[in-house]
């Protein structure tokens, strides 16, 4: 009876332990699946829900790469320290796949390299005040190279033991490489610490770095213990547990910190103020940006005055902008408008000037930009190769060239267009609040008659001031 009971108990214990291990495995796998989903959702959700404009280029790809890298990193740890048991051995269970390639160049190395690439960009733009000399898509592979090389060497020399551990001799350079990248990231972040960022990039970055630095300490400690003492079983269990926990937290921390504004808008689900309905000038708090002030004096406009002087008048500028938009030539006026806003930022506020300058370059100057302006190669290169993004004359040459272009192309037609008549009428009516009259029939301008469709990229209601980034996106097509 006792024996039977014993058997049953044993059986039960076995069953229980089986269930527990199954539950544990299930729990772990669920944890990772949910983590993965969360990362994916976090990175893609904003596009669908908040309709955040998808940034082109590195601003979009670097966060995506980070998602992949952190997933690789976690998966590599799980696989390398044998959290999952397989009955059969497969070729892809090799330590070199998980502990070397996926953990290094595709995991931690890639993650840190992405962060460094971002910090490097910020460093160049805000400390050196010029556009980064090397594009992110070139920089990233470059700083990833040591990781690839390291992985290749390890792959070649095969120093890992059957439990995927290095041993003391190999642990030192491996840990050094890991900490070197952390140090480089800290270095770049230190260099930009004194800059007061507009979108709280640095505060977020520091919080993240402080949080992650202590975790990295724990992680490195656990890693070393795990690598060196692979004969003490309790230490193995504890250190592996710590490795996984800290690494997971680390990855989460990485995703809650942001390093630049575009990343923030893409990764964060936090509702920021609706950026899309504002101009960059308004976001940066430039006085009297965007909205028209009713009290603004209606000045009499004399067509004989030079156009650049006339354009300084806000009401005139908006009327002219509406006209230029209607003949698909609005980007020059928009550029004039934004450079005018930039001029309002005092010289002693370099950070806001840099933001605005970078915004203008991204929107109007870069080849293929959303509202690229019609300027010569030389002037474009001059701006892109500038050594000082805060320079007050950064856009002067481009502005001159575009003012000439507007003068020769648009000015003459504007004076005979409905927009100028409306403008004059409005100026007259503003004094006595008269109703606007329909004046379509007076349009003498030889400009477009048939393409004022809704898909007109410049079709924006300028009198009610709706300047959205979406309209530019549609204009891209």
């Amino acid at each position, binding site marked *: 009876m006792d024996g039977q009971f014993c058997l049953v108990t044993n059986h039960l214990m076995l069953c229980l332990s089986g269930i527990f291990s199954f539950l544990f495995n299930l729990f772990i796998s669920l944890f990772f699946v949910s983590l993965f989903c969360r990362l994916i959702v976090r990175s893609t959700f904003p596009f669908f829900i908040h309709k955040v404009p998808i940034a082109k280029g590195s601003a979009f790809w670097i966060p995506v790469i980070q998602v992949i890298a952190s997933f690789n990193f976690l998966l590599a740890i799980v696989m390398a320290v044998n959290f999952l048991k397989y009955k059969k051995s497969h070729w892809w269970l090799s330590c070199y796949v998980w502990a070397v390639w996926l953990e290094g160049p595709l995991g931690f190395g890639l993650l840190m390299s992405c962060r460094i690439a971002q910090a490097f960009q910020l460093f160049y733009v805000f400390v050196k005040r010029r556009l980064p000399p090397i594009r992110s898509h070139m920089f990233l592979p470059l700083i990833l190279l040591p990781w690839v090389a390291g992985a290749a060497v390890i792959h070649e020399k095969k120093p890992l033991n059957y439990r995927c551990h290095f041993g003391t001799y190999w642990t030192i350079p491996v840990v050094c490489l890991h900490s070197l990248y952390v140090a480089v990231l800290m270095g770049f972040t230190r260099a930009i610490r004194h800059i007061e960022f507009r979108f709280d990039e640095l505060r977020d970055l520091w919080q993240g770095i402080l949080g992650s630095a202590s975790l990295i300490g724990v992680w490195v400690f656990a890693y070393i213990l795990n690598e060196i003492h692979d004969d003490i079983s309790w230490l193995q269990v504890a250190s592996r547990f710590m490795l996984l926990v800290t690494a997971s937290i680390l990855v989460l921390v990485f995703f809650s910190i942001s390093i630049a504004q575009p990343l923030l808008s893409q990764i964060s689900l936090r509702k920021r103020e609706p950026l899309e309905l504002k101009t960059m000038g308004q976001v940066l708090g430039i006085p009297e940006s965007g909205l028209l002030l009713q009290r603004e004096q209606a000045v009499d406009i004399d067509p004989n005055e030079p156009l650049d002087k006339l354009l300084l008048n806000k009401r005139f500028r908006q009327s002219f902008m509406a006209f*230029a938009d209607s003949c698909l030539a609005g980007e020059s006026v928009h550029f004039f408008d934004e450079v005018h806003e930039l001029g309002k930022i005092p010289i002693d506020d370099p950070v806001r000037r840099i933001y605005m300058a970078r915004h203008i370059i991204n929107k109007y100057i870069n080849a293929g930009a959303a509202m*690229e302006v*019609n300027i010569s*190669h030389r002037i474009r290169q001059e701006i892109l190769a500038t050594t000082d993004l805060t320079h007050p004359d950064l856009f002067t040459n481009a502005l*001159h060239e575009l003012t000439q272009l507007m003068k*020769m*192309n648009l000015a003459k037609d504007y004076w005979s267009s409905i927009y100028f008549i409306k403008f004059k009428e409005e100026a007259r009516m503003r004094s*006595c609040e008269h109703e606007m009259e329909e004046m379509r029939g007076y349009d003498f301008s030889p400009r477009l008659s048939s393409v004022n469709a809704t898909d007109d990229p410049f079709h924006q209601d300028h009198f009610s001031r709706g300047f959205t980034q979406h309209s530019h996106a549609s204009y891209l097509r």
Partner: protein
Amino acid sequence: MLITVLENMGLLCSKNHRYTEADAEENAQAAEIDRRIEQERKAEKHIQKLLLLGAGESGKSTIFKQIKLLFQTGFDEDELKSYISVIHANIYQTIKILYDGSKEFAQNDADSSKYVLSSEIKVIGEKLSEIGSRLDYPRLNRELAQEIETLWKDSAIQETYARGNELQVPDCTHYFMENLQRLSDANYIPTKEDVLYARVRTTGVVEIQFSPMGENKKSGEVYRLFDVGGQRNERRKWIHLFEGVTAVIFCAAISEYDQTLFEDEQKNRMVETKELFDWVLKQPCFEKTSFMLFLNKFDIFENKVLKVPLNVCEWFKDYQPVSTGKQEIEHAYEFVKKKFEELYFQSTAPDRVDRVFKIYRTTALDQKLVKKTFKLVDESLRRRNLFEAGLL
């Protein structure tokens, strides 16, 4: 007095007392507007839409101006006068480009001595270069014209001009520099030719309606011609015009085979034109659109091709000169034409082969030639229409 003013203001500002009358009037107006819209819609049906496409500086706007001169009222005196500032701006900008270019060549070129300016020329050059970088150019007067002429005649500047293909020197340079005295006259009014030569980089879209037969509208088709900017940033706007196009007039400046783009000095203009033509041909909207290819700037081409071999351009690498003089020009032209023909048939899907494709040799500045070309274009488009209607 004050009272009358106040009364007047009251009259101006209040509309309320005539509400019923205004209502009736508004209804009548709305009906009138509807009627007109309907009328216009019917009229629109008969209007043929023509697009002028091509890379930057290929002569689209010159053709456009010619159409205005040939089939419309042309330019009145005010319009002609409005070109004075453009022409003067062209002169100042060009002389600045040449002066800055000569300085650059003198610094960097192996054979730099050719480009070194004497000190007195330098003084004039600096002054003119400063004017050229201003936002507002002064009106050209005798004194300034004299200085510009001195600079222009200088051998270093002439050497620089000879390498103008590297500097974005506009085609009108020689013409304007040779006419400086006339252009600087206080009572100067631009001639038709001056207006045609004047270089304005187009931005956005401009349209014009015309009938090649002139006043007698019944005998000819009515066309609406759209002119666009040709630089890369301008091309994204084209797509808004692509619907319902009868014919695309594609301008290709065949003289620009040794020049680079205004907006990208790494790219050869001819190669860009090739890629652009290919892109336009493949547009889904143009399945049934006729293509009129204007191989433009033949006047510059015939002068250039004897000095600069055609094969400096990557696209024409396989060109072999055969003879000299007029024969050589013809041979080179035929080669270029063949290249474009090949490109057309390569880029045209088999289901589109029945669209009209014609190549014309043009010089947009030559009024007679443009007139003749347009007659031909008109004829082939009308024939096409008859064919479509099943009458041919």
